[in-house]
């Protein structure tokens, strides 16, 4: 019989809340209070998340964000700045000691990305893992991923682009030199793709989520059982949202 993990869908939440939930689930899982969890989510308003080591003011045009109603947050994971708009974001939270998770960090990236690649295959999209932390299809990036390990627990979250607006993304990010903005936009257009572009058709979040759910179940030989956040996780979420991800001290700390 397959192991049962929890499956969460939490749509249309703020950047601070989304990051607070991932951290709350990590803490609850580390305390043995909840099973391994796979969560799919979206962002409302659209948001930029930056990696733990990035400088917010150097990477993001905060005035432009305010004008366009775009939210921002610092993640607890490393990696780069991501504009979250038309995408499926996933997270997986699981003990480091779980037999399905390789001890080696790079190997565990590859394994978890394997689940995302299965999900893409369910949508008729062939893809491959491109170390360090990307998944590519037709030579272009369709998914970026970032992992942290805290409290003997693995949290990996990542994006699967349903559609992408490179111009909008670049209008929100700072570039080293305005003269090269157009060149950077055309470079990134050459390097980034989306489900919509690859299939020449729009795919709903629900359809993408169903495909990804199967992808995770196949990769880890598990059943994902729909659930919801526990009262304890909700309490932790509110705490982290207030004290960390919704707080200027955290978001501007670099």
């Amino acid at each position, binding site marked *: 019989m397959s192991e049962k993990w929890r499956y969460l869908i939490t749509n249309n939440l703020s950047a601070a809340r989304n990051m607070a939930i991932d951290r709350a689930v990590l803490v609850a899982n580390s305390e043995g209070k909840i099973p391994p969890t796979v969560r799919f989510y979206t962002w409302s308003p659209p948001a930029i998340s930056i*990696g733990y*080591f990035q400088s917010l003011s150097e990477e993001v045009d905060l005035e432009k964000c305010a004008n366009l109603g775009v939210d921002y947050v610092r993640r607890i994971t490393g990696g780069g700045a991501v504009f979250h708009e038309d995408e499926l974001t996933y997270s997986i939270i699981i003990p480091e000691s779980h037999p399905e998770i390789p001890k080696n960090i790079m190997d565990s990236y590859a394994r978890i990305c394997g689940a995302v690649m299965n999900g893409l295959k369910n949508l008729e999209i062939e893809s491959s893992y491109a170390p360090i932390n990307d998944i590519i299809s037709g030579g272009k990036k369709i998914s970026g991923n970032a992992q942290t390990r805290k409290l003997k627990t693995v949290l990996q979250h990542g994006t699967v682009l349903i559609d992408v607006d490179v111009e909008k993304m670049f209008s929100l990010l700072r570039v080293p030199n305005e003269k090269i903005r157009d060149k950077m936009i055309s470079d990134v257009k050459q390097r980034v793709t989306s489900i919509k572009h690859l299939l020449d058709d729009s795919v709903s979040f629900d359809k993408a989520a169903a495909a990804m759910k199967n992808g995770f179940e196949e990769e880890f030989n598990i059943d994902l059982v729909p659930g919801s956040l526990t009262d304890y996780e909700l309490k932790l979420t509110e705490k982290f949202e207030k004290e960390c991800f919704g707080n200027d001290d955290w978001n501007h700390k670099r």
Partner: protein
Amino acid sequence: MNSKSVYKIPNGKLLKISLDYDESNSTISSVKIMGDFFAYPEEAVELLENELKKIQLNKDILVKKINSVILANNIEFIGLNAEGLADGILRCLE
């Protein structure tokens, strides 16, 4: 003296350094290590920034110091390494 550098680590990530240094004896006053790399545990980078204070701006000395902090604190970098970090810091002097 304050200076910044942006350096793409060979086969790695984009490293951005903000350095305050003492010109009189060529040592680090303070350094901020930024970029889209990964470090496990993440908090170790702040510790490394502290450990680099007062260290000579010399490649061999920097690499040795960074490696000793990595070893002592069991830090794992992905997309960054001691040599690349030392190069990024020294590029602030160019």
